[in-house]
Structures are given as C-alpha cells and as structure tokens.
C-alpha cells in the first residue's frame, strides 16, 4: 500500500462484521491497521441484535414447547418462567461472544483499537476524540441505526426500539409493534410467548413483505390463529399519546381511523445507514440509502471502501462479513473481486422458522422473468407426523431450464435447511439434481427433495 506518509495503511471505521474481518485480513497481510469503534466492540449483532434476540427467542420456544407437551404425554401444568432470569440468560449469551473483551484479541493480531467516533476531516484523515489519524486507505463499516418514523406524540409518549426491548425486565402486558419485517415479527413472537397481547402493524399489506406471498400468509395465519396477535396490515400510525399508564396509538387502516391502548410501543420500522461521519470532507458520495460503492465496494474516493449495513442492501451480519472479506481482498490485491449476491440466505427466527434465498417470485414477476415454481407442504413428509407439526412448506423457483434461482422455507429448522438450496443456487444446480440427491428419512429436508422433484 503506502510508505510511512500516513499513520496507518488502513483505518477501519467500525468493529462489527463489516469492519473487523477486513482489519484482521489486512493485518495478516502485513499492513498497519487500526479499528475505530465509537460504541461497543463487535458492533450491533453480538451486543444488541442477532445474539441477544436469538437467545431470548430460544427461551421463548422452550417455554412454548413445554406448555404444549400434552400430545406427547408431557405434563406441563407447573411450567412457568422468571423473566429477569431469562434476561440474565440473554446477558450470558452476549458475554459468551467475548466481544466485550476483544480489544486484546484485536491488538494481538496487530490491529490497533481506537475508541471514539471517527469523523472525516479530510480525504486521508479522521478525527477520533480530537486526535487526528491518517491512513492511506479507509474501510467504512459504521453500520446502521433504527429508523424512528415521524409520528406525532411518539417522543413524548415514549417508545422502545429493539435495543431497549432486549433489556426489559418483564414482558409488557400489551405491545404495539410498528414494522412487520423480520425484527418486528421476531419480537412479536418473543413477547407473545410470554403472554403479551401483540398488535403488529405495518404500512405494507402483509407481514414479512419482502418474502413470497405464501410465507406471509402462513405466518399471519399462525400469528393470528395460534398466538392471538392482531395483525394490522396497510396501517399507518398517525399519533401516539399517553393516557394514564397506557399509550394510545391512533392509526389509519382501510380509510378509517382506529385506536388501541397499550402498555408499550416498539418501533421496528427498518434501519438507516450511519453515514453522518463527515463523508463530504473525504469526497465520498452517499444517499439516505447508504454509501455509494462500485462493484468492488470502492466509494467515489478510490482509496476509501465501504462494507456492511452502511452501504444499504441486505443489512445482514453474514453479508457484512462477506463484504468485509471482499473489501480486504480488493484493498490488498491488484486484481479486484466483486461480491456475488445471487445466493444470500436470510432467516427470520419464528416458530416455525422462515428462511429464503435468491429471488422471490415477486422479484421474478417484476423483472418479467419466466419461471417455474413448486411447493411442497411439510404435512406430507414423515417428520411432520413424528413431530406433530403440520404448518409450513418448501417453495422453489427455477428458471426455464430448471436451474434453481430462489427458494422459501417455512418449517422447523428452516434456517438450516435453506443452506442446501443456497448451495444449489450458488453453483447453478438444476432442481432435478437436488431432487435426485438422497435426503435422509425422516427429516424436514425431504420437503426440499419433493419440491424440487415437482419442477
């Protein structure tokens, strides 16, 4: 990279998935590297996102399974929970990631850790707590933050974001969730398991609006019929106010104004990239959707790369770490690589899990692509019988030649099952090739074989 003109060869802004991988790869390649972290080392996922929410959901599922053991001859009259203990379990899971103590891990790998918020003060310089740090190259991996919609009265009435919701000491008696994407649905699942009355609202007409229609229908059916949630699609929250100990939420739906009173409001209405870091001073172009990058993850300033949530896109931890690896390669090597997003698996941790990869049917219709689809309900396979679980399906989408281009799975362990289809799409396999592969009996994956055989 550069001579000793600069303090470092590479400064990485952000120690989450998008930043730390590249920092370590560059240090391993002999570069002088520093990571700047304004908040908690490790970023959003291990501290406030994936790890704590999935730990809480694990407790919720165990409790739910224990309460419903009667068909299997399990008596569950005495099953209960202690929510502070559940929160303590969550804290243990977060602590077990080791990120809180990762400063020494970074330093021992040759990555200097600088605490504080970085702000660009020039193309090759950032200010970190008034200390000026220069570098030949930068990787911006500053992540994202929860978007708070402009709703009258919301600030005054008070609300939670997922960051606060994971630290509650008891589940709210009633909860109005704004946003029915993956996070909103997961929190709906979590708190409904512990008895909260849930209202799940979104301006989109269905829950999980980025998934295929069948996924949304199945999840809505389970949420409303089995969990007693009130699903409010095509609903726009107009205003919020305090009424005694409760919060009144007024929303518009189907042209009519309605209101409910709840104990708490959770805003899970999407995330926005953290771009307010003086990018203009470095000549880096960006928009509200994120930092603009080319196919090599290079910004408009060629010595500055960006990866992870800050460039928009999927906003998933595994995509951030993947982009971090690609950015590191491009920073170190002359021959550059582009990230391949054809087979990005994404999972919503409900019960049953929801997972998808590749293109959705709606994506294909929007692009006028001729596709073939097939769906296998899990109720027809042996594992459904032995588990007494009948909701869910595997849906596959293939192009005209039968090559797999997309899939959705709603069933237990969908988050594991999806990886077979991810591999198939990544390596351009035909549906018939997957169908002719042995799948063990009795597993949920048999539904993959059956769906592929129908293409």
């Amino acid at each position: 990279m550069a001579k000793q003109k600069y303090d470092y060869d590479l400064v990485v802004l952000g120690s989450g998935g998008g930043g730390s991988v590249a920092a370590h790869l560059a240090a391993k390649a002999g570069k002088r590297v520093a990571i700047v972290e304004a908040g908690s080392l490790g970023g959003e996922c291990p501290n406030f996102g994936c790890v704590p929410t999935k730990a809480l959901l694990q407790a919720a599922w165990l409790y739910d399974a224990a309460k419903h053991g009667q068909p299997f001859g399990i008596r569950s009259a005495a099953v209960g929970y202690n929510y502070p203990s559940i929160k303590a379990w969550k804290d243990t899971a977060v602590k077990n990631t080791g990120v809180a103590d990762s400063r020494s891990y970074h330093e021992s790998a040759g990555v200097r850790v600088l605490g504080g918020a970085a702000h660009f003060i020039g193309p090759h310089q950032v200010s970190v707590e008034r200390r000026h740090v220069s570098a030949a190259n930068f990787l911006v991996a500053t992540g994202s933050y929860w978007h708070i919609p402009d709703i009258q009265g919301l600030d005054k009435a008070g609300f939670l974001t997922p960051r606060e919701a994971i630290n509650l000491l008891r589940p709210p008696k009633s909860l109005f969730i704004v946003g029915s994407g993956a996070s909103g649905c997961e929190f709906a699942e979590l708190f409904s398991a512990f008895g909260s009355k849930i209202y799940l609202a979104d301006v989109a007409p269905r829950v999980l609006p980025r998934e295929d229609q069948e996924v949304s229908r199945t999840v809505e059916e389970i949420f409303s019929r089995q969990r007693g949630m009130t699903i409010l699609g095509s609903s726009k929250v107009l205003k919020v106010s305090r009424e005694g100990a409760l919060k009144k939420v007024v929303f518009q739906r189907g042209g009519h104004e309605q209101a409910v009173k709840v104990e708490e409001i959770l805003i899970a209405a999407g995330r926005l990239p953290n771009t307010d870091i003086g990018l203009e001073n470095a000549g880096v172009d960006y928009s509200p959707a994120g930092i603009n990058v080319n196919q090599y993850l290079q910004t408009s300033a060629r010595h500055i790369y960006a990866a992870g949530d800050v460039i928009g896109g999927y906003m998933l931890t595994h995509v951030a770490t993947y982009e971090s690896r690609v950015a590191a390669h491009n920073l170190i090597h002359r021959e550059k690589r582009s990230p391949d997003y054809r087979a990005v698996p994404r999972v919503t941790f409900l019960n049953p899990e929801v997972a998808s990869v590749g293109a959705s049917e709606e994506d294909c219709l929007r692009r006028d692509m001729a596709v073939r689809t097939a769906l296998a309900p899990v109720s027809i396979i042996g594992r459904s019988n032995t588990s007494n679980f009948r909701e869910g399906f595997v849906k596959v989408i293939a192009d005209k030649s039968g090559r797999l281009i997309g899939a959705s799975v709603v069933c237990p362990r969908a988050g594991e099952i999806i990886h077979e289809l991810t591999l198939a799409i990544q390596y351009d396999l035909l549906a018939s090739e997957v169908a002719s592969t042995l799948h063990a009996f009795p597993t949920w994956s048999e539904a993959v074989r059956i769906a592929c055989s129908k293409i």
Partner: protein
Amino acid sequence: MVDTMLVKRGGGLEAYDPAKLRSSLAAACKSVRAPEGEAETSAALAVARVERWLMGRPEVTTADIRRKAAEALVVYNPEAAYIYQQHKNIS
C-alpha cells in the same frame, strides 16, 4: 454548552463560536430582505439545530458547520440558506 473544535480548511483549529455563526446566518437572512427580528429569530433557531447536531461531536470541520447551518436555515428561509451556502463572507 457545545464544546466542539472546528478544523479549518488549512488545518488550523478554532473553537466553535455560536455568536459568529448566528451573526453570519442573520446576515444571510438580511441580505434577502428579511426584517431584522425575523432574521435574528431564524438565525437563532438554525443555530439551535446546528448545536443539536454538534452534541457529542468533539471535532468537525468548518465545511461541516457551513453545510449543517445551510440545512438548518433552509427550514426557516430557503433563499437565505442558498445565499449562505454560496457566499463565503457576508457582512
């Protein structure tokens, strides 16, 4: 109280001065014929917005201040905000 240092174009440093910012924003408003009272009020409100952005930021550039001030002023007087953004010195 906002305790931010500003990095000038040449690399020098100066402390953030709210009175200086308010004066230049008010001057921009007066240059587009806003009455004095309105100019002062718009300037004060815009400065308040800038200072909310500056909270928790130890150091930014003078270009950042100019950008944020123009974004803040456009809410109260779009014409003045344009003038402020285009001109380096208004007195």
